[in-house]
């Protein structure tokens, strides 16, 4: 254990040579900032999506034909509601409408609480429509006719993760916009009160309708997790590449700096510092540099993601053509932050200690004479 005097002197020497450490401090902060931002966004989106899935019914049924989603008629609701364990089946109308003027896709969702001539729109849709001066009403053009609808209100910002590209319409209006028949549904929400029955019910649905896809809540949750693991994984690979490049640069830079500082190390050795003391000195200095760079990187990432809503980076995760005004819910995974610390700060220290040790063991008598 080093004395307080030693630690204070190491920090004094660090501040004397602060310019030598500036490069590694800034680059390391930036790498930690990028990775932490990615993890914060990923965790926040995952959390919000998982919460929205948790509020959905136990099974979502979609019909497919030629590998694409295909509408279902009333008969599906009747048959599925007869399966033992099913308490309710709700038909849902949703689909995508191409807004040619802006070359964007709107997510049309049926909502029975709305009147036939009104709609609720998400923040991104509102912005896209406003650019073409659709502030009070909007016209949907289908093959047969033009549908004029009042913009009733804008979906609250807190729901932007799911509502950004959404247009909520009365189900029949939605059918008209999507070109569906009046007894058709895009999805069915199947409620199963007993969690142990969910798997069986899902299998029975597929038995009755082999072309249907029954997605349980558990399946949906794992799909979201896989999606974000995949995106997070790509960033992790990029991070590792960046980190390795950084450490190679760091080693070269530190070797150069310590080479220039050889005389200073020799002076300290002549004053009674042993090799272990020199290594401890450099260890303390670089711990201060790397830990403060790490903390700065994490703090900057927190501000960037949760206060400024991660401009530029968020589009990679949200993948929407619409400008997304989503507010990220602050979610922090302490384990992941610890992992960044472990794979960032520890190699950082290892890479800088080696050149210090090499110089500390070299012949000091010539260096002090020069």
């Amino acid at each position: 254990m080093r004395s307080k005097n030693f630690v204070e002197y190491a920090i004094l020497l660090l501040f004397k040579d602060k310019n030598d450490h500036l490069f590694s401090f800034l680059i390391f902060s930036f790498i930690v900032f990028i990775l932490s931002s990615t993890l914060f966004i990923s965790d926040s989106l995952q959390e919000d999506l998982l919460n929205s899935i948790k509020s959905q019914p136990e099974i979502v049924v979609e019909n497919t034909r030629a590998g694409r989603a295909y509408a279902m008629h009333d008969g599906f609701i009747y048959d599925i509601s007869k399966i033992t364990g099913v308490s309710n089946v709700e038909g849902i109308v949703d689909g995508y409408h191409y807004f040619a003027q802006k070359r964007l896709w709107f997510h049309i969702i049926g909502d029975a609480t709305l009147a036939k001539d009104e709609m609720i729109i998400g923040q991104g849709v509102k912005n896209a429509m406003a650019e073409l001066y659709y502030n009070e009403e909007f016209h949907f053009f289908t093959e047969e006719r033009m549908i004029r609808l009042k913009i009733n209100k804008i979906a609250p910002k807190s729901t932007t993760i799911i509502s950004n590209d959404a247009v909520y319409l009365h189900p029949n209006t939605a059918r008209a916009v999507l070109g569906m028949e009046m007894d058709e549904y895009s999805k069915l929400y199947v409620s199963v009160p007993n969690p142990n029955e969910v798997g069986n019910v899902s299998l029975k649905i597929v038995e009755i309708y082999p072309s249907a896809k029954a997605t349980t809540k558990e399946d949906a949750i794992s799909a979201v997790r896989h999606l974000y693991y995949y995106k997070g994984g790509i960033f992790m690979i990029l991070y590792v590449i960046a980190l390795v490049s950084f450490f190679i640069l760091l080693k070269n830079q530190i070797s150069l700096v310590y080479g220039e500082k050889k005389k200073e190390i020799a002076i300290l050795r002549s004053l009674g510092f042993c090799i272990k003391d020199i290594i401890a000195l450099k260890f303390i200095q670089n711990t201060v540099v790397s830990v403060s760079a790490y903390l700065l990187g994490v703090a900057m990432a927190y501000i960037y993601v949760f206060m400024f809503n991660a401009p530029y980076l968020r589009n990679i995760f949200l993948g929407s053509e619409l400008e997304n005004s989503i507010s990220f819910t602050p979610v922090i995974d302490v384990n992941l932050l610890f992992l960044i610390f472990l794979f960032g700060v520890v190699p950082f220290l290892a890479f800088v200690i080696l050149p210090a040790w090499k110089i500390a063991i070299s012949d000091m008598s010539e260096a002090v004479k020069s």
Partner: protein
Amino acid sequence: MSKIAITNLNKLYNPNKPNAFYALKNINLSIEEAEVVILKGVSGSGKSTLLSLIGGLAKPSSGEILVNGQNIAKLPDIMSSSYRHKEIGFIFQSFNLLEGLSVYQNILAPLSLTSLSKEAINEKVSRAMSLANIEHKQHQTVGSLSGGERQRCAIARAVVMEPEIILADEPTANLDKENSLMFIDILKKFKALHKTVIIATHDTLFDDQNCIDRYVHMRDGEFVE
């Protein structure tokens, strides 16, 4: 028992290479406690190498160096560093100060290896600065000091741990006559404090100084009469 006893000391540089040469050849020397010894000789005669070996900065190729009866030539790094820290005060020709730090912070360096209280540290630094007559410059960075002031800062740092042995390598080579005479005054203070002092120099200013006990002449790594 002598304070320092050197027996059959050799230092070979670049062994097993075509440019191998002996910097010291079969050196035998005894120095008593509180003795002030001048090593005289031209550049390359081996004076600095001998100081480095006595100070534990380098290891001899063969022979032994007994300081207080302990062979410092065989000490591992941690013990030879501790020996330098506690027993030796180095004064170099080029001062070897830590640039960018103040006089006080330079003198503080050896004390950073101790667990002394702030008060004890301040007292030691003040005493060392007073001995070297540099306390009025304690807050100035060493870069802004004159050559003589830098030398006095280096002297204060060398004595702050109150070592028994002071090793000075060409201490007046970079000083004008006035500052060189000031160094002689400090040397007298060392004598009064019963320090063992070894100075490697070819400065004639040290000739016929009554504070000096012995002159040892060196040439080509050997003592000459």
